[in-house]
């Protein structure tokens, strides 16, 4: 036995050394990058991460750590412990790399009392006691209620200590307190055992109760930040462990290792699972976002996992724009090879649909294919950007974001029309987007004379209006924070009501025309916090509280939203545009930006936003940047490495054409005309101003009524009614006959194969393949009714995915 053991050890050493020699790290990172210990109880874990030439990272399990001066702190098993006040550094050595981390020790001998808010409440959060499905439910659970994720500490303190005196805590025998007995599963508990009786968390509760369960004597240090280390990891192979360390920062300058007090989660367990202690274990290939939540803050780090021994080479491509650099960088790190650029016919159909909401006509197609210029794609983009259909398409998109629709007794059809025209003029002139939005948010006056005031007329509820503005212009859904602190984002109830306060002083009165309303600022009215009952002053989301004493609150808000320094607005608009062209946002859904829903490519989104703002908010330029990238022009066809990727833009997505555009395209290819109320015969569905105007086709294919601000109101999912309508309804059958396209050609003596070629070009933007031509012809030749058979080919094309989808 001993011999075997020795052999195994020797072999293990041999393998280890060979690996170490073959591939030495190019650097090491030490986390946290600086350390402060500020009480006798304070401890700090240290993580060391080695980085390699190919970008991957490795957790260093047992790094050599020593204090530069042993007087001030000690290091036990990678954890720092204070000894005496002073400054020194932590010396880290690994694989020939040396790092020194500054360490400050203050109050090394003081032992502060346990705080209810800082020490006790985090135990409830960590153990899950105040989750929505447990005691955090609005009605509590089994007679005991805690505020959801701890939004109401004073109330929680009351309920634990005062609601049933003598029931939940027992200062005479702290471990016998029902609070502990239930949490440790010593007595029956619907939620089961949440804490080990011997754990540090249970000990914290015992010590707090033993000390008399004191409330905090005054305000406690406010949490200002949470750092999750390491900030990123690219790990090779499954079953690799990577610990995480979380450090909370407070307003008084102190910090704290809260690794043991955080809740952890992964958005992709198969790729990286995280244990309640903050240990990640890797799994299959992919990218996961590891989140930690402490008190009101959630933060996250991306973890990429790639298989061991992966043979991978990134294709060499020429050209490309700055957009592609950002996309390619991400794809390289994921070891994903993108699809090649699509062919000219595919590109023309895709870009024409995306820029104008139409398919290329046969004439446009042949002109494009005959264009000898090597940059003909850029030329056709320029031509399409100048068309009125481009304006109409984006007026529709903005009308959706602004929810333009008639509202009984509030927004008349005339107001809708004026509002729509206002939007149309702005977009046709390519007016800077910041100015358009600023004018809208700060709009006052008559709904006829200054149409963007209709925005405040169609939603009169202060809270709903605040939510709409946050979602429409900042891409954030803050609704959760109306009733409790947002569990997966940074927004608290204070943020929510502070933001709502900007809209509280809006007033409306009737104009001279009974259909017109005057929207103005009344200068009075306050929002009250539902928990504290106190007046909440206007405060920007994640920003300052502006002075708004003698000006319209909305002007201050409009200036803040559209400021180039606002990190949300430019990125949000850029992401909305991106989503239109890729069927998926860099943040997805585009109006659901939150900490726990990170962008799939943060640097790309940041750069898109930065350039958009820097360009003077030139929307056409943003669009040009997107569609001229290689990324936009990639094929839908996938390879082995990108087949499962649908978030990193390594290939084009197959996207269902949205309701309005599909109806317009059906009219276009069949030579028929649509009629909508208030618009001339032949107008496009895209031009319809009022969200309430619809027809069976539009509703069935998911047109939004614009009652809801959510981008999800536009439905792209298929349904039985859609299929039936295209199969049997008037959308295809009647239009084919009404347009008479086939009939005219048959009567004019056009040969079958030419008719078929023409139908393919109309519907698909390409010629049929030889096989398609033969097989469709076979259906026509020998058919009793030649015209009907050719119409059936047309019908089949209109019912096929290649027509219904943009690709």
């Amino acid at each position, binding site marked *: 036995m001993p011999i075997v053991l020795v052999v195994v050890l020797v072999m293990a050493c041999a393998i280890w050394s060979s690996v170490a020699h073959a591939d030495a790290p190019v650097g090491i990172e030490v986390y946290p990058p600086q350390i402060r210990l500020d009480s006798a109880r304070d401890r700090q874990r240290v993580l060391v991460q080695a980085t390699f030439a190919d970008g991957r990272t490795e957790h260093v399990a047992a790094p050599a750590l020593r204090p530069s001066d042993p007087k001030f702190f000690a290091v036990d098993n990678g954890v720092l412990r204070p000894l005496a006040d002073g400054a020194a550094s932590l010396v880290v050595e690994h694989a020939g790399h040396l790092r020194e981390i500054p360490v400050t020790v203050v109050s090394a001998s003081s032992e502060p009392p346990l705080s209810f808010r800082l020490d006790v409440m985090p135990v409830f959060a960590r153990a899950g006691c105040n989750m929505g499905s447990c005691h955090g*439910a609005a*009605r509590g659970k089994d007679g005991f209620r805690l505020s959801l994720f701890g939004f109401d500490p004073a109330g929680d303190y009351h309920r634990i200590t005062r609601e049933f005196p003598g029931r939940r805590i027992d200062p005479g025998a702290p471990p016998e307190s029902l609070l502990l007995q239930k949490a440790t599963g010593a007595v029956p508990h619907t939620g089961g055992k949440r804490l080990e009786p011997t754990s540090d968390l249970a000990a914290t509760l015992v010590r707090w109760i033993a000390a008399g369960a004191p409330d905090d004597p005054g305000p406690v240090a406010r949490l200002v930040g949470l750092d999750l280390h390491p900030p990123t990891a690219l790990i090779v192979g499954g079953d690799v462990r990577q610990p995480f360390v979380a450090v909370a920062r407070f307003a008084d300058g102190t910090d704290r290792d809260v690794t043991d007090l955080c809740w952890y989660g*992964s*958005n*992709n*367990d*198969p*790729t990286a699972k995280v244990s309640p202690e903050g240990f990640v274990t890797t799994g299959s290939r*992919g990218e996961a976002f590891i989140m930690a939540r402490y008190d009101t803050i959630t933060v996250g780090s991306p973890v990429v996992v790639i298989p061991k021994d992966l043979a991978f080479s990134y294709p060499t491509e020429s050209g490309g724009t700055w957009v592609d650099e950002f996309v390619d960088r991400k794809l390289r790190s994921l070891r994903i090879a993108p699809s090649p650029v699509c062919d000219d016919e595919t590109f023309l159909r895709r870009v024409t649909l995306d820029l104008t909401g139409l398919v290329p006509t046969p004439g446009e197609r042949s002109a494009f294919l005959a264009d000898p210029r090597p940059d003909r794609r850029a030329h056709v983009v320029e031509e399409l950007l100048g068309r009125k259909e481009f304006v109409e398409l984006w007026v529709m998109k903005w009308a959706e974001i602004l929810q333009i629709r008639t509202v009984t007794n509030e927004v008349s059809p005339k107001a809708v029309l004026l509002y729509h025209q206002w939007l149309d003029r702005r977009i046709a002139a390519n007016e800077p987007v910041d100015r358009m939005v600023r004018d809208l948010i700060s709009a006052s006056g008559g709904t006829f004379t200054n149409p963007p005031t209709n925005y405040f007329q169609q939603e009169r509820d202060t*809270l*709903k209006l605040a939510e709409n503005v946050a979602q429409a212009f900042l891409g954030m*859904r803050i*609704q*959760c924070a*109306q009733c409790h602190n947002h569990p997966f984002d940074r927004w608290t109830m204070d943020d929510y009501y502070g933001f709502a306060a900007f809209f509280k002083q809006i007033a409306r009165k009737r104009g001279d025309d009974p259909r017109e309303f005057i929207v103005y600022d009344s200068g009075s009215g306050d929002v009250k916090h539902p928990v504290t009952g106190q007046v909440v002053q206007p405060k920007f989301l994640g920003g300052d509280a502006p002075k708004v004493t003698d000006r319209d609150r909305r002007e201050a808000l409009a200036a803040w939203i559209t400021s180039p320094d606002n990190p949300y607005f430019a990125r949000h608009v850029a992401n909305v545009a991106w989503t239109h062209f890729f069927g998926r946002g860099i943040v997805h*859904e585009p109006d*659901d930006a939150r900490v726990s*829903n990170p962008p799939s490519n943060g640097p790309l989104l940041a750069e898109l936003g930065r350039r958009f703002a820097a360009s003077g908010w030139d929307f056409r330029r943003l669009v040009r940047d997107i569609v001229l990238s290689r990324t936009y022009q990639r094929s839908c*066809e*996938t390879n082995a490495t990108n087949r499962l*990727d*649908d978030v990193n833009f390594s290939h084009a997505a*197959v996207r*269902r054409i949205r309701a309005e555009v599909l109806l317009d395209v059906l009219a276009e290819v069949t030579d028929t005309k649509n009629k909508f109320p208030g618009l001339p015969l032949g107008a496009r569905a895209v031009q319809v101003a009022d969200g309430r105007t619809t027809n069976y086709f539009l509703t069935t294919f*998911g047109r939004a009524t614009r009652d809801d601000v959510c981008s*999800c109101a536009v439905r*792209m*999912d*298929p*349904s*039985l009614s*859609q*299929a*039936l*309508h295209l*199969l*049997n*309804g*008037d959308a295809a*059958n*009647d239009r084919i006959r009404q347009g008479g396209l086939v009939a005219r050609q048959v009567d004019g003596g056009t040969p079958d194969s030419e008719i078929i070629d023409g139908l*393919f070009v109309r519907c698909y933007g390409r010629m049929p*393949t030889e096989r*398609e031509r033969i097989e*469709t012809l076979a*259906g026509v030749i020998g*058919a009793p009714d030649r015209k*009907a*058979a050719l119409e*059936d*080919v047309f*019908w*089949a*094309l209109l*019912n*096929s*995915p*290649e027509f219904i*989808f943009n*690709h």
Partner: protein
Amino acid sequence: MARSRLPCRGPFAGSRREFLQVGCLGGLGLSLGSLFRLQAARADTKTFQHFAGTARSVIHVWLPGGWAQQETFDPKPLAPLEYRGELGSIETNLPGVRFSEHLPKTARIADRITVIRSMTHGEAAHERGTHNMFTGYRPSPALTYPSFGSVVAHELGPRESLPPYVCLPNLPAPDAGAGYLGSAYGPFTLGSDPADPAFTVRDLALPGGVDPQRFAARQRLRDVVGRHFQRLEDTANLEAMDEFYARAYDLVSSERARAAFDIKAEPDTVRDEYGRHEAGQRMLLARRLVESGVRLVTLSYGGWDMHQKIREGITKTLPPFDQAYAALIRDLERRGLLDTTLVMVSSEFGRTPKINPDAGRDHWPKVFSVLLAGGGVKRGLVYGASDAIAAEPADNPLTVEDLATTVYHCLGIVADKELVAPGNRPVEIVDGGRVRNDLLA
């Protein structure tokens, strides 16, 4: 709590396993890549397997506007006139149980049904009460909840080439839709009233000039022109569209399935028994649909928001209901379907105890009546009671959560199961309801 299979069961045929997994996510606006995240998100959510329920299908009769308990199934003959109203009451075939004088036919089948007289909730606005009664949830600003039918479509999927959830004649309210589950689980709405002599279901029949042979030729051509694109077809959206086309072909081609919508195939005697009016023909068509495989049919009948002249309103609206409902229960029983078909009659709320100055009654959610019959509920039961003037529940108040949980239980669905709303938010089918076993046979 076993997680023996995927939590989300798609609506589509079992052979397409992979699509099953992804397709059901399509409805959430998710895609293939989100699948894993979704599963990850679900790791700590509550999942349950279905079990064999007592009800194979549900007919939900919706009476929009809020029906008066006093003038229907909970008369108060001993209350003063201003409370009991002008209409009288009659005996039923259950000793001591009285219904409105306009329910003579239903009175004779009282021993087949369960009358709940203690339904209660707190929402006195139409849209809020409607939401309560269709979803089992109070309305939320953050989330649109799915209706019974959409949950059933999501959990159990289609049967016999027919859509799982049908609304007739139209979507009775937005709350009857799919909510956060997405339109793939929304109802198939007829858009045409079976009481109308010209009744036909939109797009169900082949268009003029297209016979089955020509339709078959069209299908072949569609295959031909679709093949080139098919190599791209590992995206969920395309698969889902294909699936719905397959279901549409099935429906169009299956004479049996299409026949389910053909009310003219019913013998005149049956059509007359139900009554040649909206109530009768809609209930009859609902029976045909569930008999053929539809899992849940929601039909609406009448306008019950009788703020004025309630006597006239009831006298006009209730008798057709009485005829149709009694016929439906008898017909289901004759066909041996009553024990496997749950018939629920509900409304958004009841009406005020006292007659108002306009001789009507106003909104009153504190207590009102709901009917359940068949599908595993007791026969001949009066469940709960209102007080002497039908103002408060006096006995066994029934909450919307408990009603919904009990209905789901009859279908074999555990309502405590969590579905996934946008943002990977786990949401129970019903939050906090319990099965009222004393309603069940």
